């Protein structure tokens, strides 16, 4: 019988490959990836392909799109090139989105992990704090933080992270609560593994997939929050962000709708790409839910 038991099943393709296969099965997710790639490309090539400084006067104010090829998508009220704004705005939006997401997930993971792993009073205290953050209307908190810190882009990013960490924290906590009773955790503990290693090496990698999926939601929300701030005139005017462009474009919405609509559509498509990516990731990471 020895022979039979050493017979291993045929080796599987590497994890990344299987993930990709599952992901690629979902056409909407591919579209999301494509859009996302486009935005990243725009962000990377801003200033190369589109050499104009997005804050400089590039032409007559309120030039309509496709009328002057020096400014293909037209200009806004101060004569700034909308195409350049679109490219540079991609950079800002992505930067805000990615950094705020990383930060908020960082905080969320830390709080959620400690809370879920240790339970007891640690959990009590951390959860009270989380509840407190959840009880204050997030946008009001965001406004307060921006009022305190000022509207520079770093602080806006930080403020967005501060108002968005609770959901990942709860998520990580729930995952930890269910994972910490899994036998493999007991097994590691029984080997004498320290708590820190248990948290970060054993449990966390297993708790991350839903959080990674949720990252797309935070990313989308960050961009929406930034644009809402800009809409209220609290954006950072030193950078061309899509939110700023909409915020300023709305005053000419009735006559020169493209000033707000072009960045508006850019936001919509970017957020859409995050959502589609997120759903694709979800399908890929939780094969249980997928159907072909």
């Amino acid at each position: 019988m020895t022979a039979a038991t050493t017979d291993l099943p045929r080796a599987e393709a590497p994890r990344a490959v299987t993930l990709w296969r599952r992901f690629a099965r979902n056409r909407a997710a591919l579209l999301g990836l494509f859009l996302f790639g486009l935005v990243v490309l725009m962000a990377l090539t801003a200033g190369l392909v589109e050499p104009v400084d997005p804050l400089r006067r590039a032409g007559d104010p309120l030039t309509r799109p496709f009328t002057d090829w020096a400014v293909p998508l037209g200009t806004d009220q101060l004569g700034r090139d909308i195409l350049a704004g679109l490219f540079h705005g991609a950079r800002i939006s992505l930067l805000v989105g990615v950094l705020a997401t990383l930060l908020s997930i960082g905080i969320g993971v830390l709080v959620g992990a400690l809370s879920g792993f240790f339970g007891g009073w640690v959990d009590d205290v951390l959860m009270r704090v989380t509840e407190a953050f959840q009880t204050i209307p997030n946008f009001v908190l965001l406004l307060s933080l921006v009022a305190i810190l000022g509207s520079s882009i770093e602080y806006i990013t930080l403020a967005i992270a501060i108002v968005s960490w609770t959901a990942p924290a709860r998520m990580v906590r729930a995952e930890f609560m269910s994972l910490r009773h899994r036998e493999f955790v007991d097994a590691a503990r029984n080997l004498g593994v320290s708590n820190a290693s248990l948290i970060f090496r054993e449990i966390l990698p297993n708790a991350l997939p839903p959080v990674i999926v949720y990252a797309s939601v935070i990313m989308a929300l960050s961009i929406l929050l930034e644009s809402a701030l800009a809409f209220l005139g609290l954006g950072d005017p030193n950078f061309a962000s899509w939110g700023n462009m909409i915020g300023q474009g709305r005053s000419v919405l009735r006559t020169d709708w493209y000033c707000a609509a072009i960045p508006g559509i850019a936001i919509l498509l970017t957020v859409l790409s995050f959502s589609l990516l997120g759903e694709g990731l979800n399908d890929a990471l939780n094969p249980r839910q997928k159907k072909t």
Partner: protein
Amino acid sequence: MTGPVLDIRGLRIALPKGADRPFALAGLDLSVNAGEIVCLVGESGSGKSLTAGAIMRLLPEPHVHVAGGAILFEGRDLLALPEREMKAIRGDRIAQIFQEPMTALNPQKTVGWQIDEVLRLHTRMDRKARRARVLEMLDLVHIPDPTSVHGAYPHQISGGQRQRVMIAMSLCLSPRLVIADEPTTALDVTTQLQILKLIRELQQKEDAGILFITHDFGVVAEIADRVVVLSQGEMVEHGPAAEVLNAPQHPYTRALITAIPALIPPKPRNFQGAPVVLRAQGLTKTFAPRGGLLGGKRRTVKAVDNLSFDLHRGETLGVVGESGSGKTTVSRIVTRLLEADTGAVEVNGKDLLACSPRELREMRRHIQMVFQDPMASLNPRKRVQDIIAQGPIVHGTDPATARARARDLLELVELSPAAATRFPHEFSGGQRQRIGIARALAMEPKVIVADEPVSALDVSVQAQVLKLLADLRDRLHLSLLFVTHDLRVAAQLCDRVIVMQKGEIVESGVTADLFADPRHPYTQQLLASIPGRGWTPPDLKTDAA
């Protein structure tokens, strides 16, 4: 009635691309007559549940679908019926009982409502008549207080009662065919026996045909008229129960039957002189609700009550008992994965429960654990060699050495060293359990605590793992604390057993003595409930590979 109730001919079920085999079922012929119990036996994945699904026409279509054959029910081909007629047949003429009584009932509806639903769907009875019928059915399946259970939610009644409710539900329209898919697997032995008896009794009364799906030859011996054996979707043997059980023809059947642990305990070995490696004294654990003032009232559970035992070097001590008797709690206290309320656990002469966290980590190398669920106990994101080497690395071994040793250990547990760089999900259940054992051995412990290490495995695999454990124990002079609910397993491996009920030891002793002459009524009841205890598997050793 002439002819069989159910007649399956050449049934083939196709699996989606990328599955381990193209057909889950490759040409099954099977018939069930009225008043007959036909057992469909086979190991996990052999296609038993899909057969049931095909009959009910509830396969997860389209990716799993019937690719050929016919399913004749009372002479009509079910596969050709329109969905509307099929709906009328389901629940009325053909009923099904499922394995997990908890999840098979809707948690949000009362038991009465759920049984009533069958009547509502298939009869024109008025409310009063239906209620009367439901109560009658509940009574029929020997539910003590039908009126109160009628209004209860599934989570408010015990597992055995839930399964009775399922049975009541399936039988209340006197179906011609009942498909029972492992209806007792999730139950305690004592409950299992009661349910088996109930099914027998009702079947005789109603004269229905029963297709009984199980992986347990003990259950087959208990209940079957005829047996069909499936292996990897192929029907390998069929015939009257007595014939298949006592004179199996096909090598696969023979292998299966050989693997069943006999109810004959090994010869007692003497450990009087051997040193005690593990001593538990006065262990008590009460689960109290957390939250104090704001937590509200919940009942407290005394999971372990003043429990003491000794384990000698090289000895295997079995802990047996029904679900909830506190077995797992004991194993977790002993390894200090759970803090006991009171008591002491001496390992190597030192009290584990009094250790500081630092000392504890040092002590852990002496007492290791093998877990029940081979999948859940391996970190899915780590490679096998890292899983095995983790313990030694934590305790200071150089990583390269530890990994090399991990590969040696894989060989020791009869796995190819090629396994070292794979992930746990790429292995079968038995192989995973071997990895778990290797991980425990890597620490070179004195004591191994094993909590139901084989109960998630098929019999043939179970036999291999048990044999491996016994081998290692003897070779490495290990002491085993072996927790199991399966008395057959306990009988095969353990030198001594303690029998637990509600957290207390009701009886303990040398296995052979205890099995031969149980004193405590609870032990007697346990022993009497072992399925197929009247049947001794034939001695086929000569043919075994």
